[in-house]
């Protein structure tokens, strides 16, 4: 009898170990993708490209600071350079794990700071193919993660993980992530709709080492249904630049300090 137990346990063990590994891998991926450094300063260029090839450009300085542990609270400060009608606008986000973020927008033409009502899961970031959630991360506990296979993409040895949302509210039924075994960065992500058809693809197009952190400096998100895509490049990026807590306040939202936006 005992032997059978041991046998069953042995059978179960690798499966359990794998399940833990999927969660672990996603946690490490989130840390590598969204949390490297104590803070980040990046000049970001977004190109929104329509099916017909028409381009719109959004350019901003993104400042991010981590609070607490990995996977914990983060604050974002964004200053827009382009397009002309949003030039000088600033945008601030306090992101909390497990609940909706606080967001403020500063409109310079009328010198007004306003809270923005937006939900992470289904809000496009500045009209791009990226949602707020794609930019600042999704709560890992909202999905069940499982390792599907291992696969090589280009030179990257990847673990492929299937993440299925636990709640039915999401527009996708599951997501496949190709996580590089060395850097834990997502090399590719595929989103499948309720019918199980692929409709959205993320890809990391350039990875560079910035202060010892492998960083995706070019990425894209393509919507296969509309043919629209968004390319994001970091024109400049730096970690551990010493962003003060005071930056993330109404005062500096209204008057962004020159040294943080140049």
């Amino acid at each position, binding site marked *: 009898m005992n032997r059978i137990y041991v046998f069953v346990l042995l059978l179960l063990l690798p499966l359990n170990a794998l399940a833990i590994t999927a969660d672990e891998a996603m946690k490490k991926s989130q840390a590598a993708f969204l949390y490297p450094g104590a803070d980040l300063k990046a000049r970001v260029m977004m190109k929104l490209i329509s099916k017909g090839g028409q381009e719109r450009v959004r350019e901003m300085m993104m400042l991010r600071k981590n609070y607490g542990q990995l996977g914990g609270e983060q604050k974002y400060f964004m200053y827009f350079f382009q397009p002309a*009608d949003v030039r000088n606008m600033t945008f601030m986000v306090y992101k909390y794990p497990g609940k*909706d973020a606080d967001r403020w927008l500063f409109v310079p033409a009328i010198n007004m700071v306003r809270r923005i009502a937006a939900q992470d899961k289904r809000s496009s970031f500045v009209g791009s193919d990226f949602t707020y959630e794609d930019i600042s991360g999704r709560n890992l506990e909202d999905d069940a993660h499982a390792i599907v296979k291992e696969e090589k993409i280009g030179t990257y040895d990847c673990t492929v993980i299937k993440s299925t949302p636990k709640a039915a509210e999401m527009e996708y039924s599951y997501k496949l992530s190709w996580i590089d075994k060395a850097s834990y960065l997502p090399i590719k992500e595929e989103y499948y709709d309720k019918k199980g058809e692929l409709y959205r693809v993320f890809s990391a197009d350039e990875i560079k080492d910035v202060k010892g952190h492998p960083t995706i400096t070019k990425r894209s998100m393509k919507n296969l249904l509309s043919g629209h895509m968004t390319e994001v490049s970091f024109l400049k990026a730096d970690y551990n630049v010493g962003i003060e807590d005071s930056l993330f306040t109404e005062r500096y939202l209204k008057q962004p300090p020159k040294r943080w936006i140049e």
Partner: protein
Amino acid sequence: MAADVSLHGFVQGNYSRDTKTENPDGGDYKLSEERVQLKLEGTADPFRLFIKGDAFHDNIDKHSIVELREGYADYTSEKWDVRIGRQVITWGVGDLLFINDVFPKDFEAFFSGRPMEYLKKGIDGVKLGLYPGRVNFEIIATPYFEPNNYPDPNRFWMFDPMAGRTNRETQDPYRDLHEAETALRMYRDVAGFDTSLYYYRGFSRQPSMMPDDPIAPTKLTLFYPELSVYGASVQGRALDGVLSLETGYYDSRQDRHGADPMIPNSQMRYLIGYQRQLWEDFTLGLQYYGEYLQEYSAYVQNLPPGFPQEKRLHQIASVRITQFLMHQTMRFSFFALYGLSDGDYLLNPEVKYNLTDSIWVAIGGNVFGGDKLWSQFGQFAKDDNVYSQLRYEY
């Protein structure tokens, strides 16, 4: 210390045509103008200079005007900063319903279909910001009073209780530093809510009329009664959206007993607002606003015969819906103010489309109505208009 200079601005055409009837002076347009704006900014830390100037040609009055919209110098230190010059200040949490935003506004711009930024007028003054730690302060001193701008009687049909009296003169508040306007805002985060306290001491920006003879007036003097405002606001995330609360006590210092019919009664004002995203790129905003007259019986007793009698509680509800389409390059919006007390309304639908990253066009309308021709929006019932805005920005 290297100075960093930037130059931006726009070229804009802005037109607004009557849809119901011609203007009082016979014209068909509320607005027809071409405008150029230049924004010049120079920074050499800790100093910054900003100048925003407009030059425009008014096709109705056939003249060209240059105006300084903003022009100020900033000095920034670690715990404080100061801004001196012409500047726009926006306080409070209301959406086009103002309690603690006691700063000057241009309602003609709003009612005739100019871009929203033209609703706000700059003040000429000094703003001191103090950031010692737990609480932040904004202190504003304005030596020269700036009134609101109301619609031009040549272009807008409006209610005027003394319409027959055309002999009018305007009396500015005392033009000396002794009677300068002062305003204070203290703010901080309280349990995740942006919380502010406000104080204002100055003058009502809406003129009151003083007849030289109450029985048979021959001349009216327009003046700006003394006013103080004490208020508070909170705004934060609640009920899956953003909740806003604001209140203010309007202390009509020249008529605390409410006995002078020509000066507004003291009031308690309050506002509740809620904003929520219902689906992708669609936001709904709702507001409820009230003004409660403090000395109502004195007001009723002293109201001259023939003057419309206000209700003690004046209530307004508003709705704003915004839908972005085509990767947020197209915006449909609809804003409505409805007077719960007087049954009057203002409707403002608008479509805005960014043709490219530097050119946008907006087309919209202003529709006014209500049974009472003296009510806030009902008086503009003949002023419905359709407007267009075309802007190239660089």
